[in-house]
Every structure is written in C-alpha cells, then in structure tokens.
C-alpha cells in the first residue's frame, strides 16, 4: 500500500467523520439531504484499479449504513457509484492526457467538468438511495424531486472542498 493510498484513506476517514458529525436534513416539500459518500468514492486515486474502487465503495456504504441504520441502502448506492465512477471519469475527463497519475485524490482542472462529474455521481447515488428507500412506483415524482434537490444540496456542500483541492493542484 503506497503513501498515496494511505493519504486517500485518511481523506476518506475525514469526510466520513464530517458526514457523521454534520448531518444536514432539509424538509421542504420533499426530502433534501447532504450525502457526501459519492464524493468520497469519486475522488479515488487515479492509479487505483476498478476492483479497489468497488471494495472502497462497498466498505464506505457499509459504514454509512452503520451510522444511519439504513439497512443496505447506502451499500447498494455506494457500490453502484464505485462501479460506474471510472466510466464517467473517463467520459468527462481525458484522464490519459493528464500528468497527475500519482496524486492521492483525484480532482480535475476544469471547474465545469468537476461539477458535472461530482454532481452527476451524487445524483446517481441519491436516485438509487431514494428509489430503494421509497421502493414504490407511486412515489416516482417524489423520488426524482428528492434526488435532484439532495444532489443539488450535496454539490453545493462539496463545491468548496473540490474547488480548494483544484486550486492546490493548479498551484503545484
């Protein structure tokens, strides 16, 4: 296990602690929550293989389920994000052309692409989460609305974090 991986695990631990301590729940006409689990998985180091990402997604999900007593909802959502994150990353960023292969935490240079990538994965995570939570076709509108609002809140919440990391990247 390289130093980069250890630093990434510390980073993931910090984010999990942050999520556990600050649980923001907003109830307007729908359910708005901030879940940064997708962000933890989507910043996995570039040199990691897909299997490692899957394991990371699984364990982060189990941990979130333990914290929120949510019975496998986070595990399934987070595992799915772990599976599809590399595809989306390859699609949104031209990863092969970048020269930061050894960075411990992945954040792109382009702000718009960053937002599409992290926001998209958060939305994907949350739509799986809410679909399993309500588990009813009757609530499809509520599921979509809750996922959209929560993804928006989550992106707003993580925006300063990845913006900070991006600036550090540019400075180097």
């Amino acid at each position, binding site marked *: 296990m390289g130093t980069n991986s250890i630093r990434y695990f510390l980073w993931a631990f910090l984010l999990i602690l942050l999520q556990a*301590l*600050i649980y923001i729940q907003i*109830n307007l006409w729908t359910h708005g929550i901030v879940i940064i689990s997708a962000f933890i998985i989507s910043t996995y180091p570039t040199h990691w293989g897909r299997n490692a990402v*899957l394991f990371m997604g699984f364990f982060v999900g189990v941990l979130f*389920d333990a914290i929120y*007593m949510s*019975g496998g909802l986070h*595990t399934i959502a987070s595992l799915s994000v772990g599976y599809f994150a590399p595809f989306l990353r390859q699609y949104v960023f031209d990863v092969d052309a970048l020269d930061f292969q050894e960075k411990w935490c992945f954040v792109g240079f382009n702000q718009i692409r960053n937002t599409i990538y992290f926001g998209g994965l958060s939305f994907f995570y949350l739509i799986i989460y809410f679909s399993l939570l309500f588990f009813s076709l009757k609530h499809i509108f509520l599921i979509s609305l809750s996922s959209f609002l929560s993804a928006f809140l989550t992106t707003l919440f993580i925006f300063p974090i990845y913006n900070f990391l991006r600036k550090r990247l540019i400075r180097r």
Partner: protein
Amino acid sequence: MNRLIYFFTRYQTGLLFTFLLLIGFSFFAFGSSYHQSWYFNRMGNIVFRLHAFRENVLSPGKYVRVNRALSEENALLKAAKIQEVRILVPSNDPRAIVKNVDTTKLLNFHPAKVIYTSLNRKDNVVLLDRGSEDGIQRHMLVMDAHGVVGLVAKTTPHAALVATSLNENVEFNARINTTSEKAVAKWIYSLGRDRILLTEIPHKSKASKGDKVSTFGPVGESNVPGGVPIGTIISVEASPTGNYLEAEVKLAAQMERLSYVYCIEVKESGYTDLIKDYGDK
C-alpha cells in the same frame, strides 16, 4: 480449466460487483428486523457514542453542561405535571374510569433525550440516551409532552430503541374519549408523518371530527396505562369492508420535533391493588 480461469480473469470486476451487490441486497432484504437487531447489537455502542459526541461537540460551547442540566430538570418538571394522567382500570366495562387517582403510586416517569429519529421509513424508530441501567424496560409506553410517541422495542445498558407510532408494526388499543368506545390505532405509510388510522370503531359509533383519542389501558398482558393522549379525530368514514368505521387521527405528539420524551413504567404492585379495589365495580 484454462477457459474457466480466463473467464474469471476477464470478467473479474463484473463478478466482484455482482457478488458485493448481492451482499448489499441481502442487507436491504433483511433490513427491517435483521438489520435493526444486528446493527443495534453490534454497532449500538459505537453509534451511540458517535451521536453523543456530535451532540456535545456541536452544542453551544461552554454552556453545554449547564444547558444539559437545565434540560434534564425541565424534563423532570414536565414529568411531574404529566403524572395527572388518568388510569383506566381493566374491566369488562370500558367506561370504568377512575378519576383523580394519585398516579405517583402507580406510574413512574423516566425522562430521556432523543438522539436519533427516523421519519422516512415504514418502521420508524427513535433512539434514546437512557437504557436498562436507567430503568428503561422493553414494552414501556413512551410519550412526549403532548402524547404517545411509541413503545420501547429494545434496550441496551445505555440506550433504548423505541418503535414509534409511525411504525407499521406497532398497534395500540385506543379509546375515543367522548364515546368511551374501543378501537385499534395503527399507522400506514401513506398517511404521512402526522396522522394515524383508527380502525375497528363499532358501526353504530357517534364518533365525529374533533373527538380526542387516548390509550385504552391495560388489556390482557399489555401494560400500557390508559388516558395518555394519542390525538384528535379529523375524519370518520366506513371501512372498505363496511363492517366498522375508520377514522383518521392527527397525532398529538410532535414526531418531527422530539427532544425529550418520558418512558412510563407501570408499578405492578400499585396497579394490582387498584384493580382489586375498583376492577369489578
């Protein structure tokens, strides 16, 4: 054999994903009962400490201890006030209500702070920061300052899990105060967070909008004290089968804003004496 090895190597990520996903779905499938007991047993202490830590860290600075002490005192004072709840003596006649009984001999109120609440599930629960070492026992009725919150489902030495009235597995025997008729109060997910369904109301009942509903009192082995408010009827209509009436009840308890609750312990000895005195009258 080589082909098999090639197959596993070629599709290892997909197979691993499927395998882990199946584990995730097994958590999900057993989520209602298995998940609760499993996580509660093994993770209960960790989660409790985490929530307690979050509570302490995020509470306002140096006043946190003073604030906590004042809240506890406030809870005790509220509990003292609630001890005027009427007791319904178990009898064949549901109207056998004993008024002005000194409930301090019969009931014991344990204040507890809510540290976790779920509202979006079909089996909603509340986690309390008091457990069996503080006198909380299984099947105790839990109420806030306004009405019934739920029943204690499980206890550990320092925490207790309450199955709230917003839980499809919980049913109460209820009494309509104006007509003294018995009914069954239960919750269905589609009713939302502030309503509960009152079923099995006799067909000839004159229950109407605005009538108060409270717990019925001890029936059989149930130790739930009577007269604790459940809510107010907002609509009455015939059940789909037509055999009895059904009513929608607005819950008295504020489930979305729970802070302190009271677990009601029924003292067996005092209750038995009261039953002997009044039960057959």
